[in-house]
């Protein structure tokens, strides 16, 4: 008859207890949060008395997982950026020109003079004065191609070379473009992550979305504009040979050269070669320092290949000036005094201590390999978030009490059992949310409220069924058993279909919609569990004690 094995009872109560135990920290949100922050700070070495006292706010042996509050509740910024992967093609092609020039130079006898021609950004066009030497020229330029390292691109080279009359046209191959795109996005992701970490905010989300997009969510930050500033400050450092120094911004630069202003001398412009000798990407370290005159400066060090290029260049060009260019402005243009073999150097300029520190940080974090286009930008102020939390709390409490009262009025003692199950249900949802580290959003709260309303559905189905079975006067025990048995298929079908929609929402949705899908889905799981197991156990336990001859539902 109405029997539930002891081991099942233990498992049911244990599940509830564990769920509620995990949900507990959320009831003391601020304390636990301060405790967690202090723990993290102490781990990082900030063992101050303040952190010590914060840590004591929550006992060590208790679970400390919290439900993350989403951007719409805590306030914060959200950005969706698209990486302009094509930018890299241009940079690659720019770097290819000196290589091609150097390779063709020894063959002047056959190819004649070589000239860079104006072209689209993602290709290089070179004119040779002796078209009959084209075969040889193509051979040499093709010899510069390197195999692409991809999983599928077997035997593909990174560049494609073709002849158009007396022009050699070099473009990146499709395989190389794909590989480059992948690298560019990965690199951007990494750099954005490092920059945001340098600023040190709580729980930033930095995710790749699709082929070339990056989603950045930082709770607790003032505005999306601020976030853009942190991400977007491209400290693009290059070292370029200087052609001339002048004061005319509109002077003709010549093909392959460009004119950039000086950072700290107004009205001074440098004509530099567009292809850099070394770029900031090859930097391995940058530290704020002081030069021999005690002025703030930045020390830097190149990796091996950067050091070799830098060393070779300085050895060959002693006495000529070269420019240290930061974001298309010349920081300084010293003259090379001697061969610099070690790959380390110092940037001096008119920095303040703070500027030199910032510059070092930016250089260390690396330059973004390509530009970012922002497709979506959202800022929620913390006040609005707090208002939403308050409104959500009140609404949930009212909804909750209304349902509790209504259930008790409708089903009496059985309604009371259902109410206990409902309270456990809410606890379990929070326990699960904390366990998987899910994020609670405003629609997520709506999902919980909806669950409160719908969670009673399973119980209602059962109770109504018991009522019906009682009418055919089978005795209370049999009626209860049949009620559970016959209601089960309806409960399962109804909840599985809702669960299917929650799953689709989760898979297709983003941001707040996803938050809603999570609470709805978890709510379905816990409400089925509490209805089928918890209320049933309560009813059975009550029935075993009282053995009533008749029951009223």
């Amino acid at each position, binding site marked *: 008859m109405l029997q539930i094995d002891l081991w099942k009872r233990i498992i049911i109560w244990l599940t509830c207890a564990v769920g509620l135990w995990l949900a507990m920290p959320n009831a003391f949100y601020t304390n636990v949060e301060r405790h967690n922050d202090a723990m993290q700070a102490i781990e990082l070495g900030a063992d101050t008395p303040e952190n010590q006292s914060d840590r004591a706010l929550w006992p060590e042996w208790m679970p400390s997982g919290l439900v993350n509050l989403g951007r719409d509740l805590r306030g914060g910024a959200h950005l969706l950026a698209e990486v302009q992967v094509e930018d890299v093609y241009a940079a690659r092609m720019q770097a290819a020109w000196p290589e091609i020039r150097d390779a063709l130079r020894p063959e002047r006898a056959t190819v004649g003079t070589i000239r860079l021609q104006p072209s689209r950004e993602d290709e290089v066009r070179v004119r040779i004065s002796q078209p009959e030497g084209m075969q040889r020229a193509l051979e040499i330029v093709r010899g510069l191609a390197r195999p692409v390292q991809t999983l599928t691109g077997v035997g593909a080279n990174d560049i494609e070379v073709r002849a158009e009359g007396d022009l050699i046209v070099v473009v990146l191959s499709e395989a190389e473009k794909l590989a480059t795109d992948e690298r560019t996005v990965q690199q951007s992701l990494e750099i954005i992550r490092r920059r945001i970490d340098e600023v040190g905010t709580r729980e930033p989300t930095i995710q790749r979305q699709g082929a070339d997009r990056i989603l950045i969510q930082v709770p607790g930050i003032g505005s999306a504009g601020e976030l853009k500033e942190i991400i977007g400050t491209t400290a693009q450092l290059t070292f370029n040979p200087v052609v001339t120094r002048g004061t005319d911004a509109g002077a003709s630069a010549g093909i392959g050269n460009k004119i950039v202003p000086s950072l700290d001398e107004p009205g001074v412009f440098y004509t530099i070669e567009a292809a850099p000798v070394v770029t900031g990407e090859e930097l391995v370290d940058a530290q704020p320092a002081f030069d021999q005159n005690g002025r703030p400066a930045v020390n830097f060090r190149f990796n091996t290949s950067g050091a070799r290029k830098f060393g070779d260049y300085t050895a060959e060009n002693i006495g000529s000036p070269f420019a240290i260019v930061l974001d298309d402005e010349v920081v300084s243009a010293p003259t090379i005094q001697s061969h610099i073999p070690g790959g380390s150097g110092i940037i001096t300029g008119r920095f303040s201590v703070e500027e030199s520190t910032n510059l070092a940080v930016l250089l260390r974090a690396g330059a973004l390999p390509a530009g970012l286009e922002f497709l*979506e930008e959202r800022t929620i102020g913390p006040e609005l978030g707090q208002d939403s939390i308050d409104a959500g709390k009140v609404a949930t409490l009212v*909804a909750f009490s209304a*349902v509790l009262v209504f259930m008790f009025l409708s089903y009496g003692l059985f309604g009371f059992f259902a109410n206990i199950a409902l309270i456990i249900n809410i606890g379990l949802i929070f326990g699960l949310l904390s366990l998987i580290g899910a994020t609670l959003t405003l629609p997520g709260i709506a999902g919980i409220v*909806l669950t409160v*309303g719908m969670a009673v559905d399973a119980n209602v189905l059962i109770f*109504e069924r018991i009522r019906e079975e009682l009418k055919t006067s089978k005795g209370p025990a049999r009626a209860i058993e049949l009620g559970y048995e016959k209601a089960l298929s309806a409960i399962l079908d*109804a909840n599985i279909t809702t669960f299917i929609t929650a799953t689709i929402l989760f898979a297709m949705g983003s941001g*707040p919609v996803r938050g809603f899908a999570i609470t709805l889905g978890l709510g379905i799981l816990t409400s089925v569990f509490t209805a089928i197991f918890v209320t049933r156990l309560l009813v059975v336990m009550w029935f075993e004690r009282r053995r009533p001859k008749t029951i009223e539902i």
Partner: protein
Amino acid sequence: MRLKLVKQNTNFDFFKRWKLWLGISGLMMVVAFASFMIQGLNFGIDFRGGTTIRTESPMPVDIGVYRDAIAVLDLGDVSITEVFDPTFEADQNVAMIRIQAQEGQEAVTTEVIAAVEQALKTVRPEIKFISVESVGPKVSGELIQTAAIAVILAIGAVLIYIWLRFEWQFALGAVLALVHDVILTIGVFSELQIRFDLAIIAALLTIVGYSLNDTVVVFDRVRENLRKYKKRPLNEVLNISINETLSRTFMTSVTTLLALIALFVLGGDVIRGFVFAMIWGVIVGTYSSIFVASAALLYLGVKRDWSKPDANSGNQYANIDA
């Protein structure tokens, strides 16, 4: 004494005028669809691109002043609405400013936002910008596509599930009810010009889930009663099933509505549209599980003899035995 929403042993005849109900539902769907076609939805920036700025100030909102301040920036279509909510404090005067996506600009420009904020600050120095959201037209196009796919996928998945668990007539009836609910909800949003954004899609899908929940419970009983009353005509069996589950239908709808109404009144204006969609969905979903799904079932007819296996499969296995 128990609170009873529906007295026991009801015996309403739900199908006396079932053709009329189906007709009314059909008409309402046509009206909703026409409204959608003619008037269109008031798409939020999620689907249309553009920027919304939510401002708050202790001074009363003067839309004219705000409009004049922004007009000089020449940003095209700018709409400014004041937001009222019972949860606001006395000195909370909130306005929503919506700026269309700027011509020829895919990316969201910080400059535009900064310019608007600056312009408003000059006329209202104490104004605060509570939230700023900007979506580029590229993303909004994709969002609308994903949303439509999500709704269609959900309906498709459900169709398959019910088909597996019941019979195809049931699946078709349930899906008809779903389509009915979704169209009527979109119709209401179009008719009342409530802002339709990404969250509303979540609400739509929940309505799909809820309506289904309701329909499945009725169908489950129909299936049971079809086995129980083998000789009775289909409309009687359907009637009995709906009457038997009526009490449950009302109980669940009322508890869900209680919770949702609490959220509607007290949950703040940010999610009000979302909650409104769900309230509407619960009402329509409850109606449709009786008057659309079951009526469709009656129209389609259904295989009656559930005790024996299918005639075809029976023959196959009979041969093996012999």
